[in-house]
């Protein structure tokens, strides 16, 4: 799927270039400038590729998020019953991890 997406993106870029009006004649560009531009473009391509290659599995992510936060609740319920200081730290840690996971899921699976 990721390979197909990559190919589709490349094809769209190619089509966009082909559809564009021919550029006005320009003065010759120094070779060094071209190399720099190519490097820059490869960077953009890599950044695009990275985002296209890693398509998140959002239903699965939501499922794990629900389980993770339910477990955080269960940890806190146990520590409330136990009322021991180190366990309160464990509850806090679990809640923090739940909140962090929620944030990550929100970012990747809006």
């Amino acid at each position, binding site marked *: 799927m990721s390979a197909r997406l990559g190919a589709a993106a490349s094809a769209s870029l190619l089509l966009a270039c082909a559809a564009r009006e021919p550029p006005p004649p320009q003065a010759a560009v120094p070779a060094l400038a071209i190399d720099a531009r190519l490097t820059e473009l490869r960077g953009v391509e890599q950044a695009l590729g990275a985002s296209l290659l890693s398509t*998140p599995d959002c239903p699965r992510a939501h499922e*794990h998020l629900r389980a993770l936060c339910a*477990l955080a609740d*269960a*940890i806190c319920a146990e520590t409330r019953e136990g009322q021991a200081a180190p366990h309160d730290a464990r509850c806090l840690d679990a809640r923090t991890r739940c909140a962090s996971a929620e944030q*990550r899921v929100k970012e990747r699976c809006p």
Partner: protein
Amino acid sequence: MKTLVVSALLALVGCAQASREDAARAPSAAALWLEGVAEAHAEADARAGAHAQRALEAARARPVPAGVSAADRRRVLQDLQFRLAVLALHADDPARASAEAERGLALGRDDDTYTTNLLIVQGRAVGALGQRASAAEAYAAALAIHERLLQRALEGTP
């Protein structure tokens, strides 16, 4: 005479071919074992309590055939252990539930539902026994697995 010999040979070959086809059609020991486990689960679905427990225990007692991979063996047996632990919890026997969960976890741990299920039921069992810290520990271990599985899901990796 010649015809008789050829006929006999053809019959023999036919028989040999038939037995080879039968062998190919016959379910493997691994498939039969899995079928037995599935039947036990179905019986446990249909009949609660002691009947379900006996069916699942009988499936657990069956020797695992050589063709079953170590990973599949762990998953299938852990699933049985999970159900046995849940049955014990429903029967108000947290000590047995904890022992069943422990037995399942002793088969190995991985980042999967089989392991998290056992950790959760273990948490419930030891929590019911008043061992709050152990319960929180089991839940925390399950949480860590879900955290890693979540990361994989977000990265789009299986």
